[in-house]
């Protein structure tokens, strides 16, 4: 039983690292972007630009946050 739990824990940890990684806001942005794109696309709007724009905004915000955190630690 303990072996099954440890395997399930390792399996869950792998997928957490794969999808969420260091910054959960990036995965959340991907999810929100895909949902918004699906909704807009279903209503007939041109929505292909949504995910590429959200991705770079999310990466920019994440980098900024990491930089501030690094500056605070270094200071």
């Amino acid at each position, binding site marked *: 039983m303990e072996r099954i739990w440890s395997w399930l824990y390792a399996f869950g940890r792998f997928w957490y690292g794969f*999808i*969420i990684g260091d910054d959960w806001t990036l995965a959340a942005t991907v999810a929100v972007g895909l949902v918004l794109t699906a909704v807009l696309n279903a209503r007939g709007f041109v929505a292909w630009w949504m995910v*590429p724009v959200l991705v770079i905004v999310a990466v920019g915000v994440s980098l900024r946050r990491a930089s501030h955190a690094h500056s605070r630690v270094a200071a």
Partner: protein
Amino acid sequence: MRAAVFLTTFLASTVEVIEMVIIVVGVGATRGWRSTIVGSAGGFAVLAVLVVGLGAALVAIPIGILRLVIGTLLLAFGIQWYRKGVMRVAARGFAGVAGIPVTEEAEWAGAGMDWTAFALAFKGVLLEGLEIAIIVVSFGVAAKELGLAAVGGISALVLIGGIGLALRGPVTRIPRSVLQLIVGVMLTTFGSFWALEGLGVNWPAGDGAIPGLLVWYLGTALLYITLERRRLLGFQARA
């Protein structure tokens, strides 16, 4: 007619094989070859079972759902490498690109299987392989030349796969931080493209949107690297 069937399946398959080879070579060079090769072999094995088991019924596979699931996973993972690649290249510059050796920690240094490399290679091979199989079956059945269409698809796989194998050495010499950025940009590009295709979104210019996405993500990465380097240099000057 026979030449047209061969050429059409060869060219259409070539586009898919290029995408497959980019992912496999990029992941292999960044995270190590053993797990990547095992993942690719696993993808081919599942593909072979599907092709043999389903035959012409392959066209009934809901490829849209597969594209959405695999594209979303690649995008979620690719965006992390994109961010890490920007941070590492901003910190180290492009040292090592001009042949100057740099010391960089490996992405994976464990003794066992690297499941991340396995999963990335497996998914890339399975999705692209399925697309090739569907192209071959669609053209082959429509033209009543299934054998010839299969030869076209397999030729593309052997030719582009061989080129990828030959590029393995030079790609491995690229510094890991730069390679991580390149692979992150590529995974984000393919992930965005496939996930949205899976949602039924029509990309402007179809497959031609892929180079456009590459330029978009790479251009933004270079902008972020410039901004991060300026910030780092300013921080060092103040310290």
